[in-house]
């Protein structure tokens, strides 16, 4: 038990120390973790389907019984919110992960190999960047028969990979000039080994920053689609809550407790992801530190 | 009377881990019209010493104690106004890698004029008249005034910096590693430019560099610094011909010479951690002739014959 337990504790302590040393990172991680925990407990806290309508009297303001009140369709807002957080985060995380992964593969190949491979991939990245992403997604989403969570995640990932790819490529090119890469070449390491054993470990925090960015971007696009109704039909998400609320004119009628909670949660998500991004940037580039 | 007299100067870095005693009780003097060399390895504190003399140290570095008497006036006690009248006008400074500090979007001539205008009330026309002779003094053609820094080579930039430091006609210049990263021929030109300042204009120069050969070429007197303290001072001929301190002796045996093929060897061990320097003499862990007393008592810098100062128990009895 000994060695693995102590090294895990040590790693944990180092991570905690890093979070304290970089307050932006610390705050961002704290907020996101809270939301993730909440999302994880969704089925425990709300063991029924929060989207089934008219379970409770509609349009009730917040009270001890319904912490965030109820909406016009007779659903507990707090229950919806918790499930929505879970679904939205899942979509964002999945899209961000896939997008970052594709970005890493493309970026590393382009940045390290150079030459024709780089030229080709760069053109591909630029084409994707130039296409107006959101209108295209709206078109595709409205044609898809069954918009489920994985399908949405895939769609968003398809458009979120170019940014990380570009960023990774630049960093890989720069790190590839370092002398230790030359030494690795002379030690007979092949391109894959150099890319993943020599260069990537020095980019971990940069990759993390890009991931946070990708998730934030994916969620922004996700909300953009959902708020016009193009969301997964079988569940509830933060964007969809807003969609229903707008459809029922909640704000005009004064049912503010239906509109503000998802907005507040979305803002916290974006701010904390952004803080994580900035914090990891500081970790990666010592010159940015105070 | 000496131009510069330093007594017991201490400059420490206050870090979370403790105090790094970068400069720990340094005393020396510089006469008018002389080139005074301060030599030592990296980490010995010579750069911090240079900055401390001109009160250019920033937190976490603080000047803890000591006097720096320039022409009788204590620089450490002066107010900001008084310091401005002396700094750059009478005592100027060429920091390390200063050739990289030139403004890339301004011509050399205008940068010199700026330096003059910041300290004296001269019209631009008058200030411009000073530029050509300054450049000539360092061996640069007058056309260089119209060039941008990227059009000049490393050696030319370094000489432009020297010209800037000379702009207000100081009596003393401190040059910190003015020849690093320069080619051999250019090093010679830069060192000769500094020597010329002393010859033709009567300026004193404090030459801070680890390059012993450079010191041998132009210094008049030489101080050897180790781990924040000065361990030996003397006329450059004497120090090279007959080094008294074991560290100086070690240094002399460690540098190859072009003129003769002789065996060289490094001083064993590594310079000490200035957060927690060894007790007694700081050099004793690496010293080939250390005795018990060296481990307990710090040696004082004392006079030997012929104007030499040495801090070693075994030399001065």
């Amino acid at each position, binding site marked *: 038990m000994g060695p693995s337990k102590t090294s895990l504790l040590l790693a944990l302590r180092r991570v905690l120390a890093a979070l304290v040393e970089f307050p932006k990172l610390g705050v961002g991680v704290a907020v996101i973790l809270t939301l993730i925990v909440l999302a994880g407990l969704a089925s425990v806290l709300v063991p029924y389907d929060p989207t089934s309508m008219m379970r409770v009297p509609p349009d009730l303001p917040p009270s001890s019984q319904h912490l965030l009140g109820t909406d016009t369709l007779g659903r507990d807002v707090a229950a919806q919110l918790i499930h929505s957080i879970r679904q939205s985060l899942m979509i964002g995380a999945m899209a961000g992960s896939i997008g970052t992964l594709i970005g890493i593969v493309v970026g590393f190949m382009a940045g390290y190999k150079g030459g024709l491979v780089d030229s080709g991939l760069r053109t591909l990245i630029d084409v994707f960047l130039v296409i107006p992403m959101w209108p295209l997604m709206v078109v595709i989403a409205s044609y898809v028969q069954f918009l489920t969570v994985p399908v949405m995640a895939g769609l968003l990932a398809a458009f979120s990979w170019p940014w990380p790819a570009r960023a990774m490529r630049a960093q890989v090119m720069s790190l590839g000039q*370092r*002398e*230790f890469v*030359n*030494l*690795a*070449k*002379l*030690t*007979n*390491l092949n391109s894959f080994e150099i890319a993943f054993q*020599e260069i990537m*470990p*020095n980019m971990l925090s940069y990759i993390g920053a890009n991931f946070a960015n990708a998730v934030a971007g994916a969620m922004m696009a996700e909300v953009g689609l959902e708020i016009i109704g193009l969301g997964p039909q079988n569940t509830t998400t933060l964007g969809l809550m807003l969609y229903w609320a707008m459809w029922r004119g909640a704000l005009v009628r004064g049912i503010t407790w239906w509109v503000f909670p998802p907005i507040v949660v979305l803002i916290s998500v974006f701010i904390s992801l952004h803080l994580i991004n900035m914090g990891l940037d500081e970790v990666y580039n010592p010159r940015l530190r105070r | 009377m000496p131009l510069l007299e330093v007594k017991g100067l201490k400059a420490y870095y206050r870090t979370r881990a403790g105090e790094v005693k970068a400069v720990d009780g340094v005393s020396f003097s510089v006469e008018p019209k002389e080139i005074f060399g301060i030599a030592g*390895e*990296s980490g010995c504190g010579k750069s911090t010493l240079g900055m401390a003399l001109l009160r250019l140290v920033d937190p976490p570095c603080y000047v803890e104690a000591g006097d720096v008497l320039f022409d009788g006036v204590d620089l450490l006690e002066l107010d900001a106004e008084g310091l401005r009248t002396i700094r750059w006008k009478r005592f100027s400074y060429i920091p390390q890698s200063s050739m990289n500090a030139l403004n890339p979007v301004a011509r050399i001539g205008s940068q010199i004029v700026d330096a003059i205008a910041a300290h004296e009330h001269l019209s631009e026309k008058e200030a411009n008249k000073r530029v050509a002779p300054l450049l000539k003094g360092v*061996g*640069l*053609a007058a056309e*260089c005034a119209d060039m941008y820094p990227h*059009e000049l*080579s*490393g*050696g*030319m930039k370094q000489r432009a910096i020297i010209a800037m430091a000379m702009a207000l006609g100081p009596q003393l210049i401190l040059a910190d590693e003015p020849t690093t990263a320069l*080619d*051999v*021929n*250019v*090093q*010679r*030109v830069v*060192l*000769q430019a500094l020597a010329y300042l002393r010859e033709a204009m009567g300026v004193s120069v404090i030459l801070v560099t*680890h*390059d*012993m*050969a*450079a010191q*041998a*070429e*132009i*210094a008049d007197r030489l101080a050897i610094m180790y781990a924040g303290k000065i361990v030996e001072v003397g006329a*450059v*001929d004497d120090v*090279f011909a007959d080094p008294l301190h074991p560290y100086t002796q*070690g240094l*002399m045996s*460690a*540098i*190859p*010479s*072009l*003129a003769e*093929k002789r065996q*060289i*060897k*490094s*001083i064993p061990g*590594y310079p000490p951690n200035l957060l927690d320097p060894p007790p007694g003499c700081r050099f004793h862990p690496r010293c080939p002739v250390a005795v018990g007393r060296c481990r307990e008592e710090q040696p004082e810098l004392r006079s030997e014959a012929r104007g030499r100062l040495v801090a070693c128990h075994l030399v001065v009895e």
Partner: protein
Amino acid sequence: MSEPALLELKDLVKVYPVGGIFSRKRLRAVDNVSFTMPSDRATIATLAGESGSGKSTIARIVLGLIKPTSGEVRYKGRNLAELSRKGRLAYNKEVGAVFQDPYGTYNPFYKVDRIFSKAIKKFKLASSDADRDKLILHALSNVGLTPEEVLGRYPHQLSGGQRQRIMLARALLIGPSMIVADEPVSMIDASLRAGILNVVRDLRDKHGMSCLFITHDLSVARYLSDSIVILYRGRALERGSTDLVIEKPAHPYSQLLIGSVPLPDPKKRWKERIELDAKDLLEVAGPVAGCVFYERCPQAGEKCLKEMPPSVEVEHDHVVSCHQYS
């Protein structure tokens, strides 16, 4: 037929395009350089020159990191450009490298032990962990380091001198026939260089390893090497036995260079003050028809501007490229 030379460079040329896309300017970093290193005995050959002389470029071409524009590099008779992939991998085992920057050669993410373990793994130098540890211990002791002081540490925890010694230990461990050392001590404190230089000497004297040593410091070249090549703007102006070239420099550039090296002896100071022109060290792109040193040469004549100077042997093992001697 005698054995082929250890290393032979023949008319090596490396040209870089400079300026924007439409610029026609070229920088001749290496301009027809030829020299040999013998295989019958271990020698240290120095490539000496100032910045812009092309010495580092030559080193990297020999290591295979840069491809030459034209000319040949032959190692033990085999042309580097014709090596197969397998041949190239084998070459990396036979020719070791030590670079100038003790900070940049280490991947900051890993402990320094990886320098050894990777080399051992990739070059198949040990069959068991015990063998591996023995190899590392042996290599470290040969460079004056103990395992306790360096193993298990990260690069930033060690001094520049220690890091360079580890690189030399790594080279020793791989057991090459030849090492290419690119300014290995120029970023180390002057007083700590001796130890590292002595290790390079031991590599030759005790381990029979030849070394191609790149430096701008002629005092170091004098101390270490058997033969020397003086480079200026990509061309070899003078070469031969180190003692001969340094004691009796024939080329005006060598004379200037050697005369400008500061001596650590206050009794032997420079006599004249040299004046360099305002444009003295700015780069001039494009090939030079005549002698590449023409603009700075105090003894230049008409012929020097138009015709490339021939290589003339002024004495045994001492060759100079200058019209004065033809």
